[in-house]
């Protein structure tokens, strides 16, 4: 069976080795080309005019003076972007987010764009565009937006998921419920019930490379887009649809990507850049400033969460409940039918084996930028709430928090809080590894504390298409449609080498543009190595079939008598003892005369990406004078299924933990009463720097995913889920305050300490 994805326990030879990535030299020498590193002949500079208001009616946009400025080649407002979305509300929201249509919905919302011969001219032109606004009442806080007297942002949004359908529009656009059992009965059985409410502030993915692209549309309706993106095929179809182009006539090339973490899964400036190019009939390059990235490209939701957990004296959890209120900016969540709070609700108690569980996800619109996915989107916030509450339950019961988790951990056969029944999973193994880890026994000093927490992520497969081509010298080219954001070219090359039985160095992986492959879903959900890897396995196996056919022709024997082993075609049976095995290179060299090029292809939708679990241990030291918290020691333990390239798996675990640490301690969007973002820059929105962090220890566990030939699970996202709670629990153990609001910044900790000492 060529395309059977089942785990086979096959002996692996090169998988798991720590090879050098093929794009390494380009990236340490400055040769790698990212979004802003490409230029087109005759290109113009594109700049955006953005609303300074959180919510305003756009009464008039006067572009006449700007148009007269020498060097200005095109100006665009929503009038140049007619609505071609034909009732597709998700597409309409994307269009409206790219360019305000009659109303500015957040501080930073684009209202016009200019293409000019140089940046100076474009800047001057922006200043000459006069926009007349009529201010409207705004709301930026998720709880405020749900109050009865809150300004209603859209008169067309009625709450989904409630019966009967509401008679009035509101900011609550969706309610989703998940769970099983009877939580009321479960809480009645409990000896201890803990209830707590939490808030988490809005954070940004903080990729170092701003959004950037070069767009070029020709008068004949063809076009090209060079762009930093996690999904060039998705960008292609979205842009083509919004602009009324044929999808196949737009070629999108993904540049090297300077970080995305979910933030580059959606279009922001790209459709407008293409529209500018179409109007000016010249290529247009646009690069967001850092301020624009913060103000106008998707951060994660800010949230407000209630959690209630009941347990018996022996630690058995009898019932668990969570209500999640997530804001998604001014539009419903980016994934149709799966808004952000609903995703969070599904992950809530996924680590645990519960008889009675109920979660409610409330999705809310506010006057903030459109929310985008951020690494395990929606999971870290609810994990902060649930895992903090778990520690409180343990304290009430007088049980070690780790033991409470071990007792209630989900296992094979557990019905997940979001519905399905788990196959083999790694939560129990990661908890046991915590128990055995020397970190748990390390000494702590004054004002230091240790915390731990668990995390879950679904992982995703998705539409995938890959090519494997063998050159006449036996070297192998891979062409994949998922992007390489952290070494996946190396992992995919290892997979091809494993299947073909050739050295890693004989393989070179490329990211194909949209002209070279069929549709590939966006690289999200930790799917790059899982899905493209699976496609490469099948493509390689198809190529091996061709290699056997060609060997049969060369030897003039039946193909059934030929096997593929260790990179060679071998004839089976003593009658062929005179036939020396043919290497892949031997067969490739003869390919012009045995039937032409040798290749393998795969188009598929790999499913069952294999759920992922992690447990983190964290030591902090809190300075009671300043409220500042330092991470003293940090350990990540995660199930990878099978680590294709362990070094890059460790990198994912460390990077996610560091992002979670920033979320826990420093990072937040700060809005004024005027609804304007006050800290749109890396100075005031402070992500962790090198001197903030210790080494981040990792331990990779390998509990095979039954739905992948090597047992691979997605590994990219889970590591951002546990840190918020692990740090909150550590702070609680260090200085005795239970933090319920992230970031747990010095002022919030000082305030909590003051309250503790006052009581």
């Amino acid at each position, binding site marked *: 069976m060529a395309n059977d994805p089942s785990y086979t326990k096959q002996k692996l030879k090169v998988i798991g080795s*720590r090879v*050098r*990535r093929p*794009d*390494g*030299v380009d*990236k*340490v*020498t*400055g*040769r*790698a*080309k*990212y979004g*802003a*590193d490409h230029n087109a002949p005759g290109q113009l500079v594109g700049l955006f005019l953005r609303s300074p208001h959180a919510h305003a009616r756009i009464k008039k946009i006067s572009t006449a003076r700007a148009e007269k400025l020498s060097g200005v080649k095109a100006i665009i407002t929503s009038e140049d972007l007619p609505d071609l979305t034909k009732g597709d509300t998700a597409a309409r929201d994307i269009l409206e987010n790219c360019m305000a249509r009659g109303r500015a919905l957040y501080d930073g919302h684009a209202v016009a764009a200019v293409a000019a011969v140089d940046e*100076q001219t474009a800047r001057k032109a922006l200043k000459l565009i006069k926009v007349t606004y009529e201010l409207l009442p705004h709301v930026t806080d998720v709880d405020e937006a749900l109050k009865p007297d809150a300004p209603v942002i859209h008169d067309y949004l009625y709450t989904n998921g409630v019966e009967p359908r509401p008679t009035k529009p509101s900011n609550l656009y969706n309610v989703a419920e998940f769970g099983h059992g009877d939580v009321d009965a479960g809480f009645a059985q409990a000896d201890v019930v803990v209830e707590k409410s939490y808030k988490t502030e809005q954070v940004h*993915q*903080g*990729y*170092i*490379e*701003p959004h950037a692209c070069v767009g070029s549309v020709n008068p004949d309706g063809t076009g090209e887009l060079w762009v930093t993106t996690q999904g060039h095929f998705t960008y292609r179809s979205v842009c083509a649809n919004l602009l009324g182009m044929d999808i196949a006539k737009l070629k999108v090339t993904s540049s*090297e*990507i*300077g*970080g*995305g*973490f979910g933030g580059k899964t959606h279009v922001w400036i790209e459709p407008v850049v293409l529209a500018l190019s179409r109007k000016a009939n010249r290529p247009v390059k646009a*690069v967001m*400033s*850092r301020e624009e990235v913060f103000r106008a490209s998707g951060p994660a939701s800010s949230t407000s969460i209630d959690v209630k957990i009941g347990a018996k004296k022996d630690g058995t959890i009898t019932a668990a409940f969570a209500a999640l209120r997530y804001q998604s900016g001014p539009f419903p969540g980016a994934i149709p039918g799966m808004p952000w709070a609903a995703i969070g609700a599904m992950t809530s108690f996924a680590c645990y084996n519960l008889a009675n569980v109920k979660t409610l996800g409330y999705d809310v619109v506010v006057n903030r930028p459109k929310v985008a996915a951020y690494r395990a989107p929606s999971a870290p916030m609810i994990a902060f709430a649930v895992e903090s509450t778990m520690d409180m339950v343990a304290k009430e019961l007088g049980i070690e928090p780790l033991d409470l988790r071990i007792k209630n951990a989900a296992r094979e056969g557990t019905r997940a809080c979001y519905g399905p029944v788990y196959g083999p999973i790694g939560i129990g193994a990661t908890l046991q590894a915590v128990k055995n880890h020397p970190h748990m026994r390390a000494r702590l000093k004054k004002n230091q504390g240790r915390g731990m927490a668990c995390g879950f992520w679904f992982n995703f497969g998705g539409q995938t298409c890959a090519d494997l081509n063998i050159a006449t010298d036996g070297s192998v080219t891979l062409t994949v449609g998922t992007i390489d*954001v*952290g*070494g996946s070219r190396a992992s995919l090359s290892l997979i091809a080498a494993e299947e073909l039985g050739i050295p890693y160095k004989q393989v070179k992986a490329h990211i194909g543009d949209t002209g070279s492959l069929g549709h590939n879903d966006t690289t999200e959900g930790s799917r790059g190595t899982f899905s493209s890897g699976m496609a490469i396995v099948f493509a390689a196996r198809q190529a091996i079939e061709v290699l056997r056919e060609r060997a049969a022709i060369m030897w003039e024997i039946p193909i059934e008598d030929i096997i593929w082993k260790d990179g060679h075609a071998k004839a089976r049976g003593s009658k062929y003892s005179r036939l020396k095995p043919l290497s892949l290179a031997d067969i490739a060299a003869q390919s012009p005369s045995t039937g032409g090029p040798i290749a393998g292809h795969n188009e598929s939708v790999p499913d069952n990406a294999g759920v992922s679990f992690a447990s983190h241990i964290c030591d902090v030291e809190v300075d009671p004078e300043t409220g500042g918290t330092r991470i003293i020691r940090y350990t990540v333990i995660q199930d990878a299924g099978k680590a294709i390239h362990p*070094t*890059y798996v*460790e*990198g994912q675990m*460390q*990077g996610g*933990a*560091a*992002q979670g640490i920033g979320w826990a301690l420093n990072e937040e969007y700060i809005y004024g009463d005027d609804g304007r973002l006050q800290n749109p*820059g*890396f*100075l005031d929105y402070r*992500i*962790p*720097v*090198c*001197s*903030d*962090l210790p*080494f*981040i220890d990792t331990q990779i566990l390998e509990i095979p995913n039954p739905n992948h030939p090597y047992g691979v699970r997605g590994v990219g996202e889970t590591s951002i889920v546990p840190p918020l709670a692990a740090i909150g629990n550590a702070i609680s153990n260090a200085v005795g305050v239970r933090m319920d609001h992230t970031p747990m910044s010095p002022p919030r900790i000082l305030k909590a300490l003051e309250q503790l000492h006052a009581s």
Partner: protein
Amino acid sequence: MAAVLVSTTINGDAVEFACPPQESLLAVLRDRLGLTGVKEGCGTGDCGACSVTLDGRLVCSCLVLGAEVDGREIATIEGMAENGKLHPLQENFIEHAALQCGICTPGFLMAAKVLLDRNPQPTETEIRYALAGNLCRCTGYDKIVRAVQATATELRQLEKKKSRRKKSKKS
């Protein structure tokens, strides 16, 4: 305003360019001279992606004007590998997987080189503070610090070998 004519040295080569007086060195390097290995992450001196050296001193090129570099010496990532050979820092960044997306890598390499040129035996803390002006969002800095440590050790051993060779020649 009229463009300013500037004569400078970049990666050892004499270079002349003209730029408006308000244009940043970063814009000059990237847009006029094609040195796109120098990256822009913020334009406000907060991320270090545009790090270069100016007369040996580490600077954010977004905070320097093109007009300021007349008669001075600039080094960028494009000049770090010499005679077709990667600098040991570049080798170790690849070997230790100190990069994921790679956008911050040129800046980190410049900053790390300045550190090791001045302090061949930095402690972990010294490395962390020397690199604190460079933001990386992918790695959590773990493998970056390890790559710098490994390079420092390698370079010290190389120095020892060299001095031993010198001694044996003398004796």
